[in-house]
Each structure stands twice: as structure tokens, then as C-alpha cells.
């Protein structure tokens, strides 16, 4: 017999997911995509500024002298894998598997924390090599761009941990799956921004 309680629950979820709005789409999701579109503009401006100023090193070190490509490659890999664990958390939330959702959220947060830790280490190493915030136009634009990205990852981490706490205490307002999905969208966004930063800033020499 195919008509089980699980099927009923799934059908109920589908009705819950279908938003009763003029567009037929969830306003929360629409708002999130609009927000991510505007974030593209923010990072577009920061990346443009860096690309224009990266050759202006003054008396400070050049990008190739300070960048540690093997280290940053590992950081990039860690952030990329956190996107996989995040999408698995979203997938588990849609399947109403709270245990797996919690587990993947925690792993995503750990990977994100590793990335942020790596960035703090990298900034410290650069500073010790004589690349301060105001050393040159290159250093200022580099710190602003990667710093803004780091802040975004940190905000994502806070959101992940808060979500985990809310899931545990059953205090998620509205659809659980949609809430996890929205935080997932934000997390993947910081990953795609890093995909661009890693190529344009680290791999292409000034």
C-alpha cells in the first residue's frame, strides 16, 4: 500500500511549502534572492577596487611575496566542502530528518570556523611580514575585501549555531525546511564569493 502516514506528511509539507502569495512564491525566499543580488553589487565594488589597486604596493610587499597559495588552497577546499555539508543539511531538513540536519549543520559550522581561523592566521602572518592595513593601496583593498568576506562567513557561522539551537529547542518560526534552506543560500553565497576571490586575488598574479 503506497498511501502511508509518511506520504500524508509529505503531502502536507508540500501544501505548507506552496506559498499563498500573489506570485505563488515564498516571500522569504524571494527576499533572500533579492538580498543576494544586492550582495553581488557590494562584492563587485570591493573586487573592482582591489583589481584597480593591486599593483599599487608602494614600499610594501607585493602580493606574490606574501601570499601562501598552498595554505589558501586548503582553506578554499575547506569552504567548498562546507557547501556540500550545508546542502546535505538542507536536504535532511526537507526529509524532516532532524538528527541528520543537526549533524550536518554542526559539521558546516566547524568547517566555517576552520576557514575563519585560517583567515585570522593569514592576516597575522601578512602583518608580521610588514603588510599593515595602511601600508599601501594594495594592502588596504586586500584587507577590506577579504575582511568583508570573513565577516560574512562569521555572520553565517552565528546564523548556523543559532539555527541549531532553535531546532534543538523547537523554536523555529514557520517552515523548518525553508529556514534551513535560507541560511543555506546565504552560506553558499559566501562560498561562491570565495571562488571568485581565490581565482582573481590569489591565483592571478598582479
Amino acid at each position, binding site marked *: *500500500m*503506497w498511501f*502511508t502516514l*509518511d*506520504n500524508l506528511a*509529505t503531502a502536507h*509539507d*508540500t501544501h505548507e511549502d506552496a506559498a499563498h502569495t500573489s*506570485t505563488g*512564491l515564498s516571500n522569504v*525566499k*524571494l527576499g533572500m*534572492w*533579492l538580498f*543576494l*543580488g*544586492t*550582495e*553581488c*553589487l557590494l*562584492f*563587485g*565594488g570591493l*573586487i*573592482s*577596487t582591489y*583589481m*584597480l589597486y593591486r599593483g599599487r604596493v608602494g614600499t610594501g610587499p607585493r602580493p606574490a611575496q606574501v601570499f601562501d*597559495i*598552498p595554505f589558501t*588552497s586548503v582553506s*578554499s*577546499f575547506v569552504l*567548498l*566542502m562546507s*557547501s*556540500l555539508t*550545508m*546542502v*546535505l543539511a*538542507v*536536504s535532511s531538513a*526537507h*526529509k524532516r530528518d532532524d538528527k541528520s540536519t543537526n549533524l550536518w549543520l554542526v559539521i558546516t559550522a566547524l568547517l566555517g570556523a576552520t576557514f575563519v581561523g585560517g583567515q585570522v592566521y593569514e592576516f597575522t602572518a601578512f602583518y608580521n611580514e610588514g603588510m599593515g592595513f595602511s601600508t599601501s593601496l594594495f594592502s588596504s583593498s586586500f584587507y577590506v575585501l577579504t575582511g568583508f568576506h570573513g565577516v560574512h562567513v562569521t555572520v553565517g557561522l552565528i546564523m548556523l549555531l543559532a539555527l541549531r539551537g532553535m531546532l534543538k529547542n523547537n523554536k523555529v518560526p514557520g517552515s523548518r525546511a525553508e529556514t534551513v*534552506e535560507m541560511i*543555506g*543560500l546565504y552560506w*553558499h*553565497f559566501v*562560498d*561562491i564569493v570565495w*571562488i*571568485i576571490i*581565490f*581565482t*582573481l586575488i590569489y*591565483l*592571478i598574479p598582479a
Partner: protein
Amino acid sequence: MTTTATDSHATEHGLSTAGYVRIALILAAITGLEVSTYYVDFGWLFMPALMIMMVIKFVMVVSYFMHLKFDNKLFSWLFYTGLILAVGVYCAALATFKFFG
């Protein structure tokens, strides 16, 4: 039957777990190739290869992990409009510095 229901629900929202892992492996392999350009001299192919790999990774994450491929087209329009405007900002800034810098 429960498994079938769960699978179809998963497909509604994107790929299966194995599908996501496959995408992640492809992304990891492309990242490895990107890093190899730092050590191996690719000649004139260096820049186009890096740009193409960056775009492939970007599109894969947006399409599969962010589900844009499976979602309503309006979301794609919202996001890609922002992205195109961002590229426009970059081109405008570059042109400004080129002519007036």
C-alpha cells in the same frame, strides 16, 4: 514505499545525496586543477583556463547547491541581474581609471 516517497521529495528539492557528493567531487577536482596552474606553466592558456574554471565552479554551486536550476526562474533573474550589474560596476570602474586615471 517510504523510501520512494522520500527520494521523490528529495528530487523535488534538488539532487540525491550521491548527486551532491558527485558535484562536490567535481568542484574539488576543478579546485585542484586551478591550484596546479600556480605550479605548472600553462603559457597563454593560463588566464582563460583559470577564468573558465572559476565560472564553471560558480555556476555549479549556484545551479545545484543553491537549487537555482530546479527553482522558479524569477529567483535566477533576481540573482543574475545583481551579478550582471556587479560586472558592469567593474567594467565602468576599469574604464574610468583607464581614461581619467
